[in-house]
């Protein structure tokens, strides 16, 4: 039985009779192939990527596993439609905090239609894309004070400037109340961002690959960050980075993805700064 995913933070949502992705109870995510070229392009990317011998194994782990295309009952009741079958990257989490960050100082790319270019550049300039090299696309953070999820309105998120993005990244790893204006305590910064398996380490591993890989240009792709809030048991946060949304990926043609690389480095610096300032606070006994 397929249902609407609980923890989707960005992209099309299968709700109120709209067409959107679905999940099963076996860890799979079904993404409908959109009518235009995008769905086709995304499937084409997954096909190419899964069989590309030049992708090192440790990098492959940052991408959802691909299980081909299947005909599945669509969420808007329009009958059986082709869906890409992917690994549901949040299925192993009980109470995941999730954040989607679109990487790159531009979301458009050469040879797009003028209409698409204008739409993209307008959004890029209105958000932190141009200024920071990335923008927060969506987030859903578990608020332990409220014992529920905090999910700011999409319009609020898109209106973030540099301070808003920084605050969101701090709130993402905080234990105090998220909905009000209290200063985020970054209580989980070292468990989630830091450590040998933390988000920063994973981003740095990705960065090293992006310094030389010329296979793909990941236009308009996002970094998804996930970690566990469920307490009890071994209390492991299991922070994870995954790359998602490949509808606009193109061949690299011998050139590195300098757009993604620059944005990724900027994002890494933001995370490093938060980690450093939270480490300093711990040392001072706060």
């Amino acid at each position: 039985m397929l249902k609407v995913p609980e923890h989707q933070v960005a992209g099309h949502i299968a709700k109120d009779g709209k067409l959107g992705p679905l999940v099963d109870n076996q860890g799979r995510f079904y993404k409908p192939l959109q009518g235009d070229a995008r769905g086709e392009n995304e499937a084409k990317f997954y096909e190419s990527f899964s069989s590309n011998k030049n992708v090192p194994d440790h990098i492959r782990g940052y991408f959802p596993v691909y299980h081909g295309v299947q005909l599945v009952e669509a969420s808007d009741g329009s009958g059986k439609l082709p869906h890409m079958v992917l690994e549901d990257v949040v299925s192993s989490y009980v109470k995941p905090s999730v954040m989607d960050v679109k990487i790159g100082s531009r979301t458009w790319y050469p040879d797009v239609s003028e209409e698409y270019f204008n739409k993209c550049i307008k959004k890029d300039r209105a958000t932190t894309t141009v200024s920071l090299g990335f923008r927060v696309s969506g987030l859903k953070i578990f608020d332990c004070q409220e014992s529920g999820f905090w999910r700011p309105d999409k319009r609020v998120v898109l209106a973030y400037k540099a301070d808003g993005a920084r605050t969101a990244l701090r709130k993402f790893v905080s234990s105090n109340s998220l909905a009000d204006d209290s200063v985020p305590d970054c209580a989980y910064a070292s468990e989630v961002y830091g450590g040998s398996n933390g988000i920063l380490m994973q981003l740095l591993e990705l960065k090293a690959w992006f310094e030389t890989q010329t296979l793909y240009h990941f236009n308009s792709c996002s970094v998804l960050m996930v970690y566990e809030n469920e307490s009890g048991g071994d209390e492991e946060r299991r922070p994870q980075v995954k790359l998602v949304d490949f509808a606009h990926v193109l061949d690299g043609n011998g050139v590195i993805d300098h757009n993604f690389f620059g944005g990724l480095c900027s994002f890494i610096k933001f995370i490093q700064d938060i980690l450093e300032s939270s480490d300093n606070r711990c040392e001072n006994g706060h």
Partner: protein
Amino acid sequence: MGLVVSSYSVKMHLKAPEHQVAGHIAKDGKPGPLVDDKGRFFKPLQGDSRGEIEVKFYESFSSNTEIPDHIRRYFPVYHGTQAVEGSDGAAMIVLENLLSQYSKPSVMDVKMGSRTWYPEASEEYIQKCLRKDARSTTVSSGFRISGFEVYDHKELSFWKPDRKLLNGIKVDGVRLALRKFVSSNTLSDTSSKPDSAFASSVYGGSNGVLTQLLELKTWFENQTFYHFNSCSILIIYENESIHDDGARAQVKLVDFAHVHDGNGVIDHNFLGGLCSFINFVRDILQSSDESTDN
């Protein structure tokens, strides 16, 4: 054409620089840059705010104690501003003449970044830049070659590609230009393949261009002081006695008319383009190393 001017009772012999490959030149009565015989370069302060911004940058940079010494060497030394008679008394920025220690320099100017515009610019300027960026390799590759001049060791003269031709090149043209830049054979002849004879002495080695670019890249991964919008990297090397004395290749950052504060954010635009440029240089170095092995 030369100018002899008196400034503070000191005679300065000023003339137009010989190896200018990009940027403004003296034309139609408008002042262009000048050099003296003491290793200094005089750059006219451009109208509107650009000249002001460039001076402000140099003032800030020269007194910024957080710039490490090994990074400072990639920037021209700043000697303040000076009014020079004979140029309408216009103020000029006085800089180190980067070519004064070279007798036969090959020079290349590479504008870094996948965009030359920036949020603080006027709408008109942004549109102008967008057009130019899309037409060139700026958008696709993260940098574009603004100009270059290279010494032909067979013809014993300097060669410069046609400016219009350069503006229209694509990725393959960039690779070809980077090869020609380190070649010794006849460059004006389009049928002969560039021999990349000096690739390892210019691009490679512990003091070569690649090593210097990598040092700059490390700094750019962390520095949030400045955003170097529309800046160029100048690559210079010596042709005189290159076989005996080596190329003395140098990388310098130039053109700071559009630099803005970093405001706690790294210069991701410059960094991305720089990393892409590094890959192009590395590819040429590797393929030239491979061909010498054969």
